[in-house]
């Protein structure tokens, strides 16, 4: 415990302001999304989503305050304990949890539900930061590699077992934190190429992709310098690439679950009639309806008449798009991006690797939520159910994002003292 005056001098005010803006703006949009003009209720009414979200905001603020006054060693020392609790709760939810929207990710306590996978995000980030910081041999010793991948893959697999692909996907974002700590940039490029290959194989005829890909490899082979030119390696790459191209379709139709396939079909325009297609269509209509300046608070027709399902949770951005227009959406993205850049800026200032890795993890987790969530509402990604940080309705997500961010702010406030 330390003196309060001391803390607040060192807390990063800009981040807190950005955080408060997003939470408040989020609440306004939840109010608009669930508000029913016919029925007037108090904003504190716990029967409404906005009433409950107000409660969650209150809890978040209290938790944030507690986190800020706790000594940083608390998180450093207990990071593996937190991680362990997180993993146990993930296993427990598989056994005792309730199923909502096809994923067994919730504990039900009274009328409230808790989603442990939300909290595992920050426990994993803490554990990852810890494991990378205690490793003196550097990130890329094989021992360190295996440990850190285990840290990430354990919750990843457990969450996939829950049937929650969206949350599992979040854990892939740690790769950027790895990159910062020294992972080869080539791996990022290879992953990107792999992603592009799979995407194009789905979008156009595989043999067209194969022709382009093979000729691409040939061109690179001829124009590369003699020193690194290797027919054998080029040949192997071409074989692998073509293997991927021609097996994508097969894997796609046999490996993926039907509802996941369906959502991707919708995105690439192969399915225009399903409920998922309608969901995407309604979402785009709502956002498109916003024009430059939006319809105004509580005036979005698509929003007010509940055309978009999941409007207050995963599709909260539709309300932003319709009622606040392009300008409002732009400002929102600007604020969010500023927050991300601010976190990276602060992370770089850290003297300890633990704090820096944690900072990057926070930025990456928030970033992947942002892009997947927004991209799905505007038809750039398949419908993946993950919340928009600080904005979407939901206690678990708001509180866990608050904890995630404020642990970093706590660590940041100690940055002069943490040298390791």
């Amino acid at each position: 415990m330390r003196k309060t005056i001391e803390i607040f001098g060192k807390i990063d005010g800009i981040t807190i302001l950005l955080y408060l803006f997003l939470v408040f703006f989020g609440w306004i949009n939840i109010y608009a999304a669930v508000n029913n003009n016919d029925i007037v209720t108090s904003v504190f009414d716990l029967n409404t989503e906005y009433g409950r979200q107000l409660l969650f905001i209150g809890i978040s603020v209290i938790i944030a305050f507690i986190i800020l006054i706790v000594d940083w060693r608390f998180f450093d020392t207990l990071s593996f304990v937190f991680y362990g609790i997180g993993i146990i709760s993930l296993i427990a939810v598989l056994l005792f949890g309730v199923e909502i929207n096809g994923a067994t990710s919730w504990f039900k306590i009274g009328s409230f539900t808790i989603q442990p996978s939300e909290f595992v995000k920050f426990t994993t980030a803490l554990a990852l930061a810890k494991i990378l910081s205690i490793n003196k041999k550097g990130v890329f010793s094989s021992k360190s590699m295996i440990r850190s991948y285990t840290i990430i893959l354990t919750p990843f697999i457990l969450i996939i077992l829950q049937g929650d692909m969206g949350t599992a996907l979040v854990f892939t974002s740690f790769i950027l934190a790895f990159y910062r700590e020294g992972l080869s940039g080539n791996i990022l490029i290879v992953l990107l190429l792999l992603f592009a290959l799979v995407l194009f194989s789905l979008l156009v005829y595989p043999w067209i992709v194969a022709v382009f890909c093979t000729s691409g490899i040939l061109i690179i082979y001829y124009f590369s310098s003699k020193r690194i030119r290797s027919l054998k390696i080029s040949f192997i790459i071409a074989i692998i690439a073509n293997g991927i191209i021609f097996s994508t379709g097969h894997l796609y139709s046999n490996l993926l679950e039907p509802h996941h396939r369906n959502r991707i079909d919708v995105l690439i325009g192969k399915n225009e009639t399903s409920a998922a297609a309608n969901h995407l269509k309604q979402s785009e209509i709502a956002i498109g309806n916003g024009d430059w300046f939006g319809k105004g608070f509580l005036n979005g027709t698509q929003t007010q008449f509940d055309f978009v399902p999941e409007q207050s949770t995963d599709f909260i951005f539709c309300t932003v798009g319709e009622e606040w227009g392009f300008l409002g959406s732009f400002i929102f993205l600007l604020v969010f991006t500023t927050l991300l850049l601010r976190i990276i800026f602060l992370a770089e200032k850290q003297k300890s690797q633990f704090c820096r890795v944690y900072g990057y993890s926070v930025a990456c987790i928030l970033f992947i939520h942002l892009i997947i969530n927004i991209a799905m509402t505007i038809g750039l990604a398949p419908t993946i159910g993950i919340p928009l940080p600080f904005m979407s309705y939901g206690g678990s997500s708001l509180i866990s994002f608050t904890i995630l961010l404020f642990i970093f702010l706590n660590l940041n406030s100690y940055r002069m003292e943490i040298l390791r």
Partner: protein
Amino acid sequence: MNNHLQKRQNVIKGIFITVVIILVSRLFYIQIINEEREFSSEVTIKQVAARGAIYDRNGKLMVSIQASYDLTVIPNEVIEFDTLRLCELTDLSIEDFRIKLKKAKDYSKYKKSIISEQLPNKPAAQIREELNSFKGFDTKLNIDRNYNVDIAGHIIGFLGKENEDMEGKSGIELSYEEILKGKAGTKVMLVDVLNIPRESVDNGDRDIDAIHGKNIFITLDIDLQEYAEKLMQNKIGAIVAIEPSSGEILTLVSSPTYSPKDLIGRERSKNYTLLCNDTINKPLFNRALNGIYPPASPLKIVNSLIALQERSLNKNSHIACNGGFLYGNNKILKCHKHPNLVNLKSAIYTSCNTYFCNLWESFFDKYNSVYKGYDVWKEHVESFGFGNYLKNDFKSGQKGYIPESSHLDKKFPFKWQSSTILSMSIGQGELNCTPIQMANLSAIIANRGFYYIPHIIKGIENDTIPSRFSEKQHTSIDPQHFETIIDGMAQVLSDIDGTAFGHGVKGLSICGKTGTAQNNHGEDHSIFIAFAPKEKPKIAIAVYIENAGWGSEWAAPIATLIIEKHLNNTISRPILEEKMINGNLINKE
């Protein structure tokens, strides 16, 4: 620390910013560039236009509109309810009700389906009152016809459903469809995701108000119509009564008829099928407009007028009847019993066949060619409106038939003469006509030579009726030729030798002419045309009663009763009236 790794923060920032720029671009496309917006939240709701009402000539309401209700259901919203009570209110059996509910569910859980159509007002009101206990059910307003009268089914016509709208299918409903129906409006509403209208768009600026149909007044006198229909019950035939000074149709009866009330509401299709299937009495067939009959003896008047106009007849000279007219190869056209010596006037009231055969022959003698004579005759006849639709305001009708001479060439391949078609002189043979044309003939005689097109429309709210109905249509006969004829027609009822003697009404100078039409379908048709009073006539009438025998037996009394009713509004011959009303010519015992 590793400096080169520190620089990697820029790569990561770069990735963040690039991705956000991609998102912003996509947003810019969706929100600003892409103007193709499909507003699934807007629906256009039809605003029903009320159909115009129909009044009779005296402003009595005949046809108005009424609201009826359909019981609808949104299956998804239904919670447990008292099925028995709802079945009772809708008059459906529980099985039927379940089947209908199931059908609605199969169609859509979220959309409205109709459970029970056109509920009568009373149970519908009861259901609306108890709607709270039937969650998911609702009533939907329908505008339907309401008939204040039980008569004039043929004239009013009926409505049928066309693309969800009720449309006139016959009678006035069809003739004045455009005026009566009005124009449906539209209301643009915002609907929620379950397609339930929630509020108006743009303060209703884009709404188009429904223009209600105009009310119309028709020329019918419903009291007279009702009386005429009563007289015609259990008889097959037609009556048309016209006001000669205007061409307005006072009464138009086709018997057997049907009540317009049969063709609305829930029983409509059942009743319609019954009416259609009655191929013996053909109640849907409007005999007054479409019935083809021989003109019979009343045509003798037309032939006399032509002969007078063409100066082939001396109206004062007498001929001897001798019981028939000899012609051709020892053939005889018989006459009935009456004083032997007749001139034009007495020939008319005795309806002497011999006289008119003579008249026919001497008319043709004037021309050196039978074709010339026939064409002159035909032209005169056609000026009376025969062989034509009369351009009235009914969408159904028949021309009747006045043969072309070329048709006669075909029918009589050998050389035909005036005597070949001698039966035309007494209104039989090749030619035929409709009851409305005969009523028009009666009006022409009453007017001494001209007519107004018989029509049913008297006035349109905020509009005018077609001008052709106020234009005098002249026949080719000069007025002075009518007087002798009219005197003769008056004596039809008043002279002891008149064919309808005894049917006159004290104080009324009725002019008439009987007809007895031979036909292929059994006993002769009983025909009577008449107008009254003799000076300044107020009503001209034609009565056709199928297979009823002599004109004087049924047609003449019925015609005179209607005239008396119209002019005096009382009946001085109750026994005759009762006999006529009770007479059953359809199921003769």
